[in-house]
């Protein structure tokens, strides 16, 4: 913990008031300033997202996170938000291992720092690969949106995987929404599907099966920008971990660099807490 400097400071470098008003090192203050500016960027993004969602015109509905994100890797069926919750949990735990690394650093316990920092890197990599799964699932889609010839909207009960052909016998669509009770099945449904005006499967920058175009755009931008931060954080942690193993900080007499990398890593976790709430839950 860095509290007020307890050491007697030479008169030559004292501030006017007799003691430093901030009592933090230059590097730590600067990483805080950087984090504030980065927080402003994310605030801007989330506020823009709120603006787009709140100003939506009539007849359009913003997709519900519990319905869009309901798959779990390796399992079939729907598990609303379970995987995102797991990702959030992993990121929180990696934040905890980071704070434990900082704590070990304060005790000059090199072994402890190496152990906790290594676990933090593993947590970060797990989160990144989970995000890769989320993105690929989001882009591929699970219920293609079909605009039928009579103007109604239908959704495939199951989106065919890449290279799979549709079997008319088992083909089924729900009318109106993915949760609708109104289902059409079999070859007749397939005929409707073939005469459809348009089929939107998955998501890209111009259209998506979930809802307004801006929904997918905000998903890509906000989670992408956050993922970029996680990537940077993992690289930063690996660099610091290497330096810890080499004993650079032990020779320096303090592990403040771990603390500074930790601040960035906690910030990444903090941003995800907000992205999770505003993008997935609300």
């Amino acid at each position: 913990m860095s509290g007020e400097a307890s050491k007697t400071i030479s008169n030559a470098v004292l501030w006017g008031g007799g003691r430093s008003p901030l009592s933090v090192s230059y590097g730590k203050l600067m990483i805080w300033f950087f984090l504030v500016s980065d927080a402003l960027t994310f605030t801007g993004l989330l506020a823009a997202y709120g603006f787009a969602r709140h100003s939506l015109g009539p007849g359009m509905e913003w997709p519900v996170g519990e319905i869009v994100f309901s798959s779990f890797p390796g399992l079939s069926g729907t598990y609303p938000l379970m995987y995102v919750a797991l990702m959030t949990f992993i990121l929180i735990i990696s934040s905890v291992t980071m704070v434990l690394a900082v704590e070990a650093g304060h005790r000059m316990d090199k072994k402890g720092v190496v152990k906790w920092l290594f676990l933090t890197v593993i947590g970060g990599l797990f989160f990144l690969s989970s995000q890769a799964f989320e993105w690929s699932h989001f882009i591929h889609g699970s219920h293609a949106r079909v605009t039928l010839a009579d103007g109604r909207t239908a959704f495939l009960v199951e989106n065919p995987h890449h290279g799979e052909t549709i079997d008319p016998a088992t083909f089924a669509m729900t009318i109106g929404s993915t949760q609708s009770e109104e289902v059409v099945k079999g070859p007749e449904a397939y005929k409707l599907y073939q005469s459809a005006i348009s089929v939107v499967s998955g998501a890209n920058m111009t259209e998506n099966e979930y809802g307004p175009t801006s929904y997918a755009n905000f998903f890509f931008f906000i989670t992408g920008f956050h993922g970029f931060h996680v990537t940077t954080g993992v690289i930063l942690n690996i660099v610091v971990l290497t330096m810890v193993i080499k004993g650079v900080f032990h020779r320096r007499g303090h592990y403040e660099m771990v603390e500074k990398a930790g601040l960035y890593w906690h910030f990444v976790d903090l941003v995800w807490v907000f992205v999770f709430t505003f993008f997935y839950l609300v």
Partner: protein
Amino acid sequence: MERDDIIEYSLDAGHSEEQGRVIRKKILFVTILLSVITSVEVLLGVFWMDIMPNSWHWVKWVFIVLTMIKAAYIVMTFMHLGDERRNVRSMILMPYVLFLMYIAFVLIWEATYIHEILKVFL
């Protein structure tokens, strides 16, 4: 010219084995709290609509309050901002919170207006 940025505050940042134990206990407490809050949020998101439909705006506010609690614990305990001098804390938080409140107010206000306009003309 004398420089005041060369004082190694970082050298004073250490703590003893005993203090470490207290700090680790606090970290464990915050970990459990954050996990519980996250689980509550997910359960609310999944089950609220089945139990009480047509009250989604209430659960939104519950989410926002729970998120604020989580954020406060992360910033104050994990990022150690609670242990810094008050000057540092204010310098970091005040400008940011002011800007946050401003931009959130302005954008939501304008979005509501645009929504009303679109209702008339679309």
